[in-house]
């Protein structure tokens, strides 16, 4: 067992040549009611051509981590209190605002959950895509329009040329999310962060959008960070999964390992609560209790009040995220026992 290092890190301390690394990130929200510790030391990374799924329930901090990486966190009330976000080894949190702006869109781009509110309602979809070519690449209006239509074509929007001058509200939900994808990919980013890209869509459209994302990711060899609470979506596309709970990564593993042998009771609970066809008619299984109040996280392991395996040590000591095997890590005092049981 190596010292507190995330899986895959070589432990030598020098820049590892990774594309995007989040390193011990800490974020809190200072509100009138108190300080909410939303991110408490999150570490993950993504490489070119790789898909990392960040899994967690609402309030686990998965979106806030992404917003911090992207630099679109509302500050205040948000404050980054520690850690680094390195892109090509360079810490983005200490960069100048201008340097950071240039990374957005070109280095790291983002797709949002609700495409209707994420697209500007008063400009045409085409304008919003072409705008990037004009402002960031200095293209003429005509060239930018041509490129924007190409992008709409790439995300398989029928009649891309005609759709160029439509407004967001004239698109269906699925088409709008495709347009959103086209917009995020316009500047050919190296990393794409997709924040629950299919949550607002119905199930058949969800599958189409995920397929499209996967296809574009392979074509462009992008690093993809897929933020979701949907275990079903993750299984198909992710290479690795990071499970978040109360602002921490509690387990990180290869997708097959995680489904086969979860190494954290929370992951186990999540997998157990997937509705199963062979248990039709029975009550759905849930994880008892509620996620902790982030203004008052319980001492010890934040999951201990809900954990069926909790022991006295869990109430005293925060389990660090430790490597427990090739490419997997868990933040549970009893991770080895969990993995080794039958």
């Amino acid at each position, binding site marked *: 067992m190596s010292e507190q290092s995330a899986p895959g890190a070589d432990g030598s301390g020098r820049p590892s040549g990774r594309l995007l690394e989040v390193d011990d990130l800490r974020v809190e929200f200072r509100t009138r009611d108190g300080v909410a510790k939303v991110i408490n030391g999150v570490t993950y990374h993504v490489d070119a051509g790789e898909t990392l799924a960040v899994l967690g329930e609402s309030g686990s901090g998965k979106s806030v981590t992404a917003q911090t990486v992207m630099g679109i966190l509302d500050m205040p009330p948000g404050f980054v209190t520690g850690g680094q976000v390195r892109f090509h080894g360079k810490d983005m949190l200490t960069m100048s605002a201008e340097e950071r702006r240039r990374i957005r869109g070109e280095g790291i781009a*983002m797709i949002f959950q609700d495409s209707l509110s994420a697209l500007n309602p008063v400009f045409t979809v085409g304008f919003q895509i072409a705008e990037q070519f004009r402002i*960031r690449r200095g293209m003429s209006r005509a060239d930018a329009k041509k490129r924007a239509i190409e992008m709409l074509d790439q995300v398989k929007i029928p009649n891309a040329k005609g759709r160029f001058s439509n407004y967001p*509200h004239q698109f269906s939900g699925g088409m709008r999310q495709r347009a959103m994808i086209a917009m995020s990919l316009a500047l050919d980013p190296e990393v794409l962060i997709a924040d629950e890209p299919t949550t607002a869509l119905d199930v058949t459209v969800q599958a189409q959008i995920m397929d499209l994302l996967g296809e574009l990711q392979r074509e462009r060899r992008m690093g993809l960070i897929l933020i979701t609470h949907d275990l079903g979506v993750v299984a198909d596309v992710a290479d690795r999964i990071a499970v978040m709970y109360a602002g921490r990564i509690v387990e990180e593993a290869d997708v097959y390992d995680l489904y086969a042998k979860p190494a954290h009771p929370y992951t186990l609970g999540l997998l157990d609560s997937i509705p199963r066809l062979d248990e039709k008619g029975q009550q759905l299984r849930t994880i008892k209790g509620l996620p902790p109040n982030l203004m008052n996280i319980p001492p010890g392991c934040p999951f201990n009040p809900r954990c069926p395996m909790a022991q006295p040590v869990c109430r005293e000591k925060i389990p660090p995220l430790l490597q427990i095997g090739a490419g997997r890590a868990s933040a549970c005092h009893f991770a080895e026992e969990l993995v080794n049981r039958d």
Partner: protein
Amino acid sequence: MGRYLVRRLLQLVPVFLGTTFLIYWLVWSVPGDPFAGKCGEKPCPDAYVATMTAKYHLDENVFVQYAMYMKNLLQGDFGTTYSGLSINDIIATAYPNTLKLAVVALTIEAVIGLTAGVLSGLRRNGFLDNLVLVSTLFLIALPVFVVGFVLQWLFGVQWGIVRPTVSSAMPFSELIIPGFVLGSASMAYIARVARTSIAENRRADYVRTAIAKGLPMRRVVGVHLLRNSLIPVVTLLGTDLGALMGGAIVTEGIFGINGIGRQVYRSIVTKESATVVSIVVVLVLVYLLMNLLVDLLYAALDPRIRYE
């Protein structure tokens, strides 16, 4: 859009007839004798009163009088005053002056109000925000004549930067202070509405998207945020032109401008009902057309608003 425009223009007809009749009837109901004091110390001779009554159809009921007035109006004739002056001439000299003043006021309030509102909306609770909040509160609370006399005294008398009153040629440079005075209260409202609108939309998802696209901040604010925040401001500005013209009477009085405010006041005092009605009728037209313009602007600003 074309059909919508035609329908809206047709709607103007009953609104126009209704408002003008109301005004006509109101002025007609004002008690008093139009010929009192017209003939020096003595009351006017009966023969004169009889002639004038016949000439201006004063013995007819209000509907007939209104109908005759409208008939002339549709031919472009506002009629004459009791002393025989053409009301068309009065309007032709007074209206441009007031319009000029109102346009200057509108420009000043739009530019200063919008700038102050946007800057304070972006930095809520900052120094500038508090400055704007306090100063707008002052402008809203102070009556126009106080702002007018204070500025006239400061700039015109104390510092001597401008002429205290506006000369009859009405050059724009002399209209800046009166325009500011006239538009001051509306300017404060515009700043406050723009501030709220900007602050509300500042956290909108599409603003976040625009930032995530790596656009420079001035484009995020100047294009994406501003366009969405302008609708309430445009409503205020559009309906304000009429209000500025109608409310210019105090400002015109302070700065000695020969505008409609002064004419209306004089006409009311001398019971020149035709002049009062004529000036107000033109004002009604300004209101109606500006309202139409605002509605059309909505559609231009927000594509989700479409008129059939």
